[in-house]
C-alpha cells in the first residue's frame, strides 16, 4: 500500500464512492473469457453443488448436482464441466505463431535459439472471488489423479473419460494464478480492487456484490450504503437479496431452501426405485424430475446474480484503456499455456502432488521475478501508480535544467554526460545509486552523482540532482541524437530496474544435492487410493 492508495481509500470512505487506484487496466482481458461461477455444498470440502459457466453473457450453461453427496452425480457434473471447459481450452491450442526461444543444446551445451510454436491466444478463466480460485485448485487436485475405465479397467469407480484431463488443466490454471501479474485465471474481486479503492477492508472486498456497489454508485448516491445492503439485506423469508459470490452458500439458503429440496429429491428417487409397475414409475419419475427442476431453479437463482455481477465487473474494467505492458505479461501466459499444451500432448503424467525441491525453487524464483516485473511495469504504465512510488522515495520526476557533456576514462573515452534534474520529490538516493528512465521503451541507466550545490539537498522539498548517464547512447564518441536528455525535458526516473534479470540455473532434479535430501524418488505417482469417504 502506498500513500496514494491510502488517500484513495480515505476519499472513498469520505464520499461513499470508489476512487480509482489506476488510470489504465493492468491485466489482460480476453475477448472471450470463460466465466465460471461455482457453488459448493456445506459440510463436505469441495463437493460441488452446481455452477454457471460459459463465454456468452446471456446464455450460461447451468450445471447442477441435485444430491451433492452422490458420487455418480458428482462425476456426471465433472463430466459436463469437462465438456464445457476442455473444448474452450482446446479451441486455443491449434492457432499458433512462430516464436523464438533460447534453449540449451543437449549436444554442445551452448545456448541456441530455436524456433517453436507459441499459441496466438490463450484461454482465460474468470471466477467471482479468490475463494473461487481455491475451488478451481481443489477441483484440479481431486480429479487429476482419477483413473478412467480406459486407463485402468479394474478401477472400482472409474471417472468419465475426460475428467482427469480437466483436473490437469484446472491444476495448471490454479498454479499459474499464483504468478504475480498472470491472467490465465483471475478473480473478479482481485481485478476490481486492483483498479478501485473503496472504504472497505480487504476482507470485505472479497464480497463481489459489495465491491461493485461501491464502484457502480451513481452520482450523488452512496456506494457505502449500497454495499451494506448488498452484504446484509434479506427478504421477508430471510434470504439474502444479493447472494454471496460463493463458492460457499448462505446458511439460511442451505437450511430453509436447499436442504428441504434435496430431501424431496431423495424421497422421489427412493420412491422411483421402489415403483412396482410402469404406471407408478412414470408418475414417480415425473415427481423426481420436478424435484430436480426445483433444485436447478434454486442453484440458478443463487448463481445468476453473481454471474451478472462478474460481467458488470468486466464492463467496469473495460472502461479503462489497456495498459501497454500488460500485453507483455499476457505473452508469458501464452507461453505457459503453450508449454502445458505440449506436456499434455506428449503424454506426460499429471502434475505431482508435491513439488520437488528444484521445481519449488524454480517456481518461487519465477514468482519473485514476475512480482518485481509487475511492480515496475505497473508504475511505468500508470502515472497514478508511479506517483505512489515517487511518494515512497522510489522514483522522482523533474525537469532537466542543465546538461554538461563529459567523458568516461579509458583509452577510447565514452560519453558520460552529466544531467542536472530539478525535482520536488524526495528520492532515497545515496551516492552511486543507479536510476533508470524509459527511453523508447528501453531503460536508460544513470548514476546519482551528487546534489547540485545551489539546488538544495532534497530535505526541504526541492532539490537539484546531478546524474551521470551511463548507456544507450550508441557506440560512437558522440552520443546518438535524442539519447541524451535536454534542458527543459520533463523526465521520470526510477530507483528500481525496469527489466528483471534471469536467476541462476538450478541443478536438474536428479542432481538435487545432499543438503536438500538428494534426488527425489523417480517412480511415478500412484492414483489417489479409494477411501471410505469416496463411497459415502
Amino acid at each position: 500500500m502506498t500513500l496514494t492508495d491510502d488517500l484513495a481509500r480515505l476519499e472513498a470512505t469520505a464520499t461513499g464512492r470508489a476512487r480509482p487506484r489506476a488510470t489504465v487496466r493492468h491485466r489482460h482481458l480476453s475477448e472471450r473469457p470463460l466465466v465460471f461461477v461455482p457453488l459448493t455444498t456445506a459440510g463436505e470440502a469441495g463437493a460441488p453443488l452446481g455452477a454457471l459457466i460459459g463465454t456468452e453473457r446471456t446464455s450460461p450453461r447451468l450445471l447442477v448436482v441435485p444430491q451433492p453427496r452422490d458420487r455418480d452425480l458428482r462425476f456426471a457434473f465433472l463430466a459436463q464441466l469437462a465438456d464445457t471447459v476442455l473444448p474452450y481450452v482446446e479451441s486455443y491450442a491449434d492457432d499458433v505463431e512462430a516464436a523464438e526461444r533460447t534453449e540449451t543444446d543437449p549436444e554442445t551445451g551452448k545456448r541456441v535459439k530455436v524456433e517453436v510454436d507459441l499459441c496466438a491466444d490463450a484461454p482465460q478463466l474468470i471466477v467471482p472471488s479468490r475463494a473461487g480460485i481455491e475451488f478451481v485448485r481443489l477441483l484440479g487436485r481431486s480429479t487429476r489423479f482419477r483413473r478412467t475405465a480406459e486407463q485402468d479397467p479394474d478401477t472400482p469407480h472409474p471417472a468419465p473419460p475426460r475428467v482427469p484431463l480437466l483436473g490437469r488443466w484446472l491444476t495448471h490454471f490454479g498454479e499459474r494464478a499464483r504468478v504475480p501479474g498472470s491472467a490465465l485465471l483471475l478473480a473478479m474481486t482481485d481485478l476490481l480492487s486492483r483498479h478501485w479503492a473503496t472504504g472497505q477492508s480487504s476482507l470485505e472486498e472479497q464480497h463481489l456484490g459489495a465491491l461493485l456497489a461501491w464502484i457502480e454508485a451513481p452520482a450523488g448516491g452512496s456506494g457505502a450504503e449500497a454495499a451494506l445492503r448488498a452484504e446484509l439485506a434479506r427478504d421477508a423469508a430471510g434470504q439474502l437479496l444479493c447472494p454471496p459470490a460463493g463458492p460457499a452458500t448462505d446458511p439460511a439458503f442451505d437450511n430453509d431452501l436447499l436442504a428441504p429440496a434435496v430431501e424431496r429429491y431423495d424421497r422421489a428417487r427412493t420412491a422411483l426405485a421402489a415403483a412396482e409397475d410402469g404406471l407408478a414409475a412414470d408418475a414417480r419419475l415425473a415427481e423426481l424430475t420436478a424435484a430436480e427442476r426445483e433444485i436447478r431453479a434454486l442453484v440458478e437463482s443463487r448463481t445468476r446474480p453473481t454471474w451478472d455481477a462478474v460481467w458488470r465487473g468486466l464492463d467496469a474494467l473495460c472502461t479503462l484503456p489497456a495498459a501497454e505492458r500488460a500485453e507483455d505479461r499476457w505473452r508469458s501466459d501464452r507461453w505457459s499455456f503453450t508449454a502445458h499444451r505440449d506436456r499434455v500432448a506428449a503424454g506426460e503424467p499429471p502434475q505431482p502432488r508435491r513439488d520437488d525441491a528444484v521445481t519449488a525453487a524454480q517456481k518461487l524464483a519465477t514468482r519473485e521475478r514476475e512480482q518485481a516485473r509487475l511492480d515496475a511495469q505497473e508504475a511505468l504504465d500508470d502515472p497514478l501508480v508511479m506517483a505512489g512510488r515517487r511518494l515512497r522515495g522510489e522514483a522522482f520526476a523533474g525537469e532537466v535544467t542543465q546538461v554538461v557533456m563529459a567523458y568516461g576514462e579509458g583509452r577510447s573515452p565514452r560519453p558520460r554526460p552529466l544531467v542536472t534534474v530539478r525535482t520536488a520529490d524526495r528520492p532515497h538516493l545515496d551516492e552511486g545509486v543507479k536510476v533508470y528512465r524509459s527511453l523508447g521503451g528501453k531503460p536508460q541507466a544513470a548514476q546519482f552523482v551528487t546534489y547540485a550545490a545551489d539546488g538544495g539537498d532534497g530535505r526541504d522539498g526541492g532539490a537539484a540532482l546531478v546524474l551521470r548517464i551511463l548507456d544507450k547512447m550508441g557506440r560512437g564518441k558522440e552520443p546518438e541524437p535524442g539519447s541524451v536528455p535536454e534542458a527543459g525535458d520533463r523526465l521520470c526516473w526510477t530507483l528500481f530496474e525496469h527489466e528483471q534479470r534471469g536467476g541462476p540455473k538450478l541443478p536438474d532434479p536428479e542432481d538435487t544435492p545432499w543438503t536438500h535430501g538428494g534426488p527425489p524418488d523417480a517412480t511415478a505417482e500412484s492414483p489417489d487410493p479409494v477411501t471410505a469417504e469416496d463411497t459415502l
Partner: protein
Amino acid sequence: MTPAPPASPAAPAAFDPAAAAARATDAILRDTLHGTHRGVVVDSPPGAGKSTLVVRAARELAAAGRPLMVVAQTNAQVDDLVLRLAEKDPELPVGRLHSSDSDPYDKALDALANVRKSTKAADLAGLDVVVSTAAKWAHVRGVEPWGHAIVDEAYQMRSDGLLAVAGLFERALFVGDPGQLDPFAIAEAEQWAGLAYDPSASAVSTLLAHNPELPQHRLPVSWRLPASAAPLVSDAFYPFTPFRSGTGPGDRALDFGVPSDGSGPDRVIDEAAATGWGLLELPARHTPRTDPEAVRAVALVVRRLLDRGGVTTSERSAEPAPLTADRVAVGTAHRDQAAAVRAALAGLGVVDVTVDTANRLQGREYDVTVVLHPLSGRPDATAFHLETGRLCVLASRHRHACVVVCRAGVDALLDDHPDTEPVQLGVTVKFPDGWDAMMTTWDHLSAHRVPWRP
C-alpha cells in the same frame, strides 16, 4: 537444537569466558577438519566472534591443504572477510570472485598483494581460499567442486540459495545467528510450508531437516554485548540457548564530560550510561510511520550524545576512547523512518552517524545505539513489526548502551494484538515468538523509562 550445556548459573565466579569460547572453537574446528559428517552447523549469538571463527577455520583448512570456497550473503560481507583474512595472514593466496557490475568490490582489496580478483571462477582455481557471494556462486558452472566450503550468515540465506550452490562443495561449515532476521520471499510461498525443502525457509532449516545427524555447535560468549545487555538479549531472543557476555559488569564504562541539562534526552542518556539501557517515552499517540516528534527526539538524543563529550572505557584499550560520531548508530524498522532521521540529524548539523534499518545493520557493531522502537505510535502490531529478528538486531548492536525512543502504550498494544500467525503443519514453531520477545524487552526497558513531553 543440540542442548549444549549452558554455563552453570550456580557458579558464576567460576565461568571463564575466554576458556569457554576456546573450548567451543576447538570442538568446531575438530568436527570441521577431522569429523566424518558432511556438514557442521554453528549458532552464534550477536558479537560472539563468528567472523573470527570463520577466518580461523579458513586458515586452518588452507593450512591442511584443503581447497576452500567461502559463501557470504552480501558483497560487503565478502570484502570484509577478505580484508580480515589478509590482515591475519598476508601470505595466504585468496581469490575474490566478483560480479561484472561496475564497482563490484571494495577498492581496498586492490592494495592486497595476495588477493586475486576475477569475474570467472576458473581464473581463481588453485588458490587456497576463494570468497564470493551466494548470488555469484550460484552462476558458477563447469568447475571442479571444492572439497570444503564455509557458508557464512547461513541463517540469512534462503533454502533455494543453498540449492543453487550446494553442488559446488563436498562438505561445509555453516555459521550464522539464528536470532537475526529470517530470510523472506516477495512472492507467495505458502504452498511449500511444511516441506523439508521449502525454498523460502532458511538454508539451515532445510539442511537440518534432511540431515538431522549433523553436529551442531554454539558459541557461548558475546564479546560485543556488555554485561548489562547480554542477559536480556539472551533471555528474550535465545531462551533455550543462553549465552554470556565476555566482560563483567565493571569492565566497561560510558562517561560524559558535560553534565546533564535536565532535559529528557540528557536524562535518558545518563540512564543508559549508568545501566546500559534507556527508554525515552513520548506521550501515547497514533502517528504516521515517520512520527515527526519521535524522529526529532531520536535526533536530539544523538546530538546530545556527541555534544556531551562522551568517553568509553573498555577492555579494548588502556586509555578511555572518545565517543565519536562513527561509533554511534541509529536503527529503525523502515527505510522512510531512516530517511526522516537522517534529515533531522542533518538539520541539527550531525553527520557521519550511521542511520539504517535493521536489515542493513545486521552484523555491525557500535558503542552506543539509538533505536526507534518498531511499535512506536502504531495502531496495530503486524507480523513485520513483531518479527523477533528485527528487534533482536536493533537491541544487540551496541558495546556500551542502547537508547530506545518510543511512544507510550506498547504494552497495551501488545495486549490488543495477540500473535495470530497461522499454524502450518510440519513447520517447526519458532521460539520465542515476536510477541513474547517484545513483551520481555518491553518489561526490561520499562525499568529504565524516562518520560518526556517534547
